[in-house]
């Protein structure tokens, strides 16, 4: 994945800020932000408003990755989960600072800013959100 530096750089603001957007027509919230609401389409044009998300949510499902891609090899085994954020959107992320045995569907989590992948051959280090158990 190292070759795709430009693309990942472009996405960094959302991964850092947790900024989503809301359809002014049906009020649905999206993360990552969408150009248009897929439910309202034309009616949502020009009505998509930025929304700050809290980064809090709960585990919808999870897996423990035992065989990882090269950039994640040093981290195996590591948990990956789908998190349903308080505001509605669901996203994929790693769970950290937590025993694997503690992870379960329904676990309340909050986001934390971390290094995501080992340094690739391009020298870029990728940062973004991971999740930890709510205090």
């Amino acid at each position, binding site marked *: 994945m190292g070759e795709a530096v430009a693309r990942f750089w472009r996405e960094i603001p959302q991964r850092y800020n947790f900024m989503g957007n809301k359809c002014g027509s049906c009020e649905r919230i999206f993360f990552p932000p969408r150009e248009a609401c897929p439910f309202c389409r034309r009616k949502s044009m020009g009505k998509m408003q930025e929304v700050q998300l809290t980064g809090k949510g709960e585990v*919808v499902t999870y897996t423990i990755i035992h*065989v990882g*891609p090269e950039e994640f090899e040093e*981290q195996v085994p590591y948990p*990956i989960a789908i*998190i349903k954020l308080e505001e509605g959107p*669901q996203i994929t992320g790693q769970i950290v600072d937590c025993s694997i045995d503690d992870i379960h569907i329904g676990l309340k989590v909050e986001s934390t800013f971390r290094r*995501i992948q080992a340094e690739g051959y391009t020298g870029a280090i990728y940062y973004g959100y*991971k999740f930890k158990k709510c205090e």
Partner: protein
Amino acid sequence: MRDVAVIGVGLTQFGELWEKSFRELIAEAGAKAILDSGISGKEVDAMYVGSMSSGRFIGQEHIGALVADASGFSFAHVPSTRVEGACASGGLAVRQGYLAVASGMHDVVVVGGIEKMNDVGGTSATETLATAADQEWEAFFGATFPGIYAMIATRHMHDYGTTREQMAQVAVKNHMNGVLNPYAQYRKEISLDAVLNATMVAYPLGLLDCSPVSDGAASIVLCAAEKAKKYTNKAVKIIAAGQASDTLALHARENICTLQATVHAAKMAYKQANLTPKDIDLAEVHDCFTIAEICAIEDLGFVKKGEGGKAIDNRITTRDGSLPVNTSGGLKAKGHPVGATGVAQVIEIALQLRGDAEKRQVPDARIGLAHNVGGSGATCTVHILEAM
């Protein structure tokens, strides 16, 4: 729209085929299909080829023209088009070929599917497969392709009480079928214990819950049904060709355990064929992972949502069950050269309906269904075939 028939089929061996090149594989499958169909090469009006990622697997794009060239059609200047939809590339190629004939644009179309995955190392093959997932919002965070299906499995276990044993039984069943398929990558039975105790890949999926990395090609010849008799008495009819899409990322779906693309492609196909799931005699479904077969038989309407695991316990889907599933051995045992898979599934159904499935023959099979999925369910095709 007019009726379309499959008049010829051709498969290569599936497996680790170090001695065979991409060109040799697709030319072999195409030549077998044309020979089986009774057409002459001159009669081919168009070609469609499914290939997921030849660029990453063998460093070659422009596969439509390459396949026409390798099969000896370049001097006939036959139009040839490559189609891509990750692991559903083959199913999409079948559907494009079907539409080309059904529309009346072409009378005779050759459809191919191919992947040569073993020329790159195992890690590289796995990472290429992961490009079927959302690279920016799934893979970036460390989700692997098996990991994404594992998350479907975890939720399925939670919501419906599905067990690792039930998933493992899917692998055991498909290996039993693979033993009887001379083209299969794995022609040996595996035990329940072996599946349950295999190296963990992404909990709850172990190595033997996953389909293998494979080389192979498959090809079929399609023609207008009214002209099929001219060439062969072994034709079968394609009576429906459904297709649907869904979000690229699994997380963006409301229900993690339901592949809406399967539900919608199936609905489209049943409507076109004027049939219900009860009318289907046998099915080839996309078992890239064992959990995927459980979800597929639910989403195709063969059993109620959540009862896919029980269906395995009740032996509904074994070769002698009421709805045999993956008599070919499925992706799990037959192998999964991704671009070839959707075409190979249609071939298994065609062979069964022709009565040519030898030791795996399902008695009195009249109507069969082929279900091909791309990624974690962002693309799906469903074809229904009927004996003529």
